[in-house]
């Protein structure tokens, strides 16, 4: 019988600990598929964050080096500068990358550090129980923005990907979602493009992925997927934000 679907080689046979309906498992799988298809499992190094994906090293079958909260871009900088011929990616949540790790991320992008960041945006601090994140949208209820995020009290959400697109050192930035089969395929293509930009030595690449968190959004998985389409994308529009991969020559 012909095998048409199986676990990617770059994903270990450990059951995911993620909640039902969470986007992390899908994103892990898609990254694993891209690593397999590009044939880079043996040269890829991942940097997991502090947050829901802190245990990512149990799932990815590539070398992984843990970073503390927000410092993945700095750890990845050290790794990639020491091993410039390896493929380095960070895997970070919204709190990790857009609050505590803002400085590290913006400067890595500005230096044009040649690694890829997977930025999972679900608008809450998931692991700590659903507190307000830097990407929590106005009006969204969290445990620390009761009654909904208010601009006067809580400030505005941060459009990190748009900010990083301004940086001269970034090569490829796209925002996608994993709330439907077609969006998952687009996410996979975006991750592949980002990895390819790195393989060509073009500089910093990032894929921001809008990802459902039914547990902390207090929704069913189906409602959470609809909420991304109906509410979240209005604040974080999907699509390519920056792409200079066509203009730039390979640096390797």
């Amino acid at each position, binding site marked *: 019988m012909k095998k048409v679907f199986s676990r990617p080689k770059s994903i270990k046979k450990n059951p995911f600990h993620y909640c039902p309906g969470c986007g992390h498992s899908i994103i892990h799988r898609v990254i694993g598929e891209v690593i397999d298809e590009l044939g880079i*499992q*043996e*040269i*890829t*190094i991942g*940097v*997991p964050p*502090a947050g829901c994906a*802190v*245990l990512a*090293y149990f799932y*990815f*079958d*590539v*070398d*992984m*080096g*843990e*970073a*503390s909260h927000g*410092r993945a*871009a*700095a*750890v*990845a*900088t*050290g*790794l*990639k*500068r*020491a*091993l410039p011929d*390896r493929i380095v990616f960070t895997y970070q949540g919204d709190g990790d990358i857009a609050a505590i790790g803002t*400085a*590290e991320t*913006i*400067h890595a992008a500005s*230096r044009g550090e040649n690694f890829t960041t997977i930025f999972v945006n679900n608008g809450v601090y998931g692991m700590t129980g659903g507190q307000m994140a830097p990407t929590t949208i106005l009006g969204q209820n969290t445990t620390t923005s009761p009654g909904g995020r208010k601009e006067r009290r809580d400030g505005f959400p941060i459009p990190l990907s748009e900010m990083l697109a301004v940086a001269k050192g970034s090569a490829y930035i796209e925002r996608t979602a994993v709330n439907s089969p077609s969006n998952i395929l687009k996410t996979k293509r975006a991750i592949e493009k980002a990895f390819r930009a790195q393989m060509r030595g073009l500089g910093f690449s990032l894929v921001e992925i809008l990802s459902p968190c039914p547990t902390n959004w207090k929704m069913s998985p189906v409602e959470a997927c609809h909420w991304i389409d109906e509410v979240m994308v209005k604040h974080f529009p999907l699509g390519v934000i920056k792409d200079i991969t066509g203009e730039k020559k390979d640096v390797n």
Partner: protein
Amino acid sequence: MRGNHVIAEAAIRAGCRFYFGYPITPQNEIPEYMSERLSKIEGGVFIQAESEIASIHMVIGASMAGGRVMTSSSGPGISLKQEGISFLSALELPAVIVNMSRGGPGLGNIAPSQSDYFQATRGGGHGDYRTIVLAPNSCQEAGDLTYKSFDLADKYRIPVLILGDGMLGQMMEPVELPPEIPVKRLPPKEWTITGAKGRPSRFIRSLILDPFEEEEHNWKLMRKYEKISKEELLWETFSIEDAKMIVVAFGTAARIAKGAIKRVREEGLKVGLFRPISLWPFPTKILKEISRKVKHLFVFEMNMGQMVEDVKLAVDGGAEIHFYGRPGGIIPTPLEISRIISSYYYQKKLG
């Protein structure tokens, strides 16, 4: 050569190819020297990071990759690096961290001070951990200890701190530099994160959710610290054979104390010097032995009294301890210290 330059050159000669830092006085000559030197070496990496926090985490990344790596700073910057130092300890990663300390707390000033003794030897970061702390008192020793610290860091997979001050960093002395180690001849590391080519993938992490596993990890670190406490002690003694009173001081303070002791010796006072060079591990046992014979220890520090606690722990009530300190970046003269020493000496009816 200037102390800061000696440290940078000794690091290069020890095989350091990665340096990440952030400007702060009085250690700026280290990143300046490293940026120049590393740009001329194949595979050399220098980054002036956006913060001390970023630089210590770049150190973590390069150390995971197996490189010999260094960062340097001064008090306020070392405070920011503490997060990374805690992680280096938990992840068991080798690294060398230089603190050319200054007057504090807060911004304080840029004058020489020893106010970071607690921070260095107790660890300013969270969790149960220890770092090796070496305190040179001359440019020659700064070079020798920096060179040695890379071997210690690799041997034990531990961060090593070099604790100096603005005086050591800025002063110029003739030095004999150690020979250059070819990086290719350094022993291979079996635990690095380099891509799983021809071997199973591996990971380095500090999150250990199971308390029993975390406890085991803590005990494993403890066993390593116990081994270091036995095998890596460094100290110097001066004129202690006939001494009735011994001055205990480290780094710059020990240098001043030595000058003071030479003065009082000329007046016939029997005073010696004990200088801990490894501040952690602290040379507890040898000091305890000394306190069996000499009943008066005079601790002199350029702070409000920090190492004096380790001296008290070491002698455990076996000798009378007197403390004299000058905080805030004051550099007392040997004359001032000799007067204080002799006044205490006569007060205790030793002469």
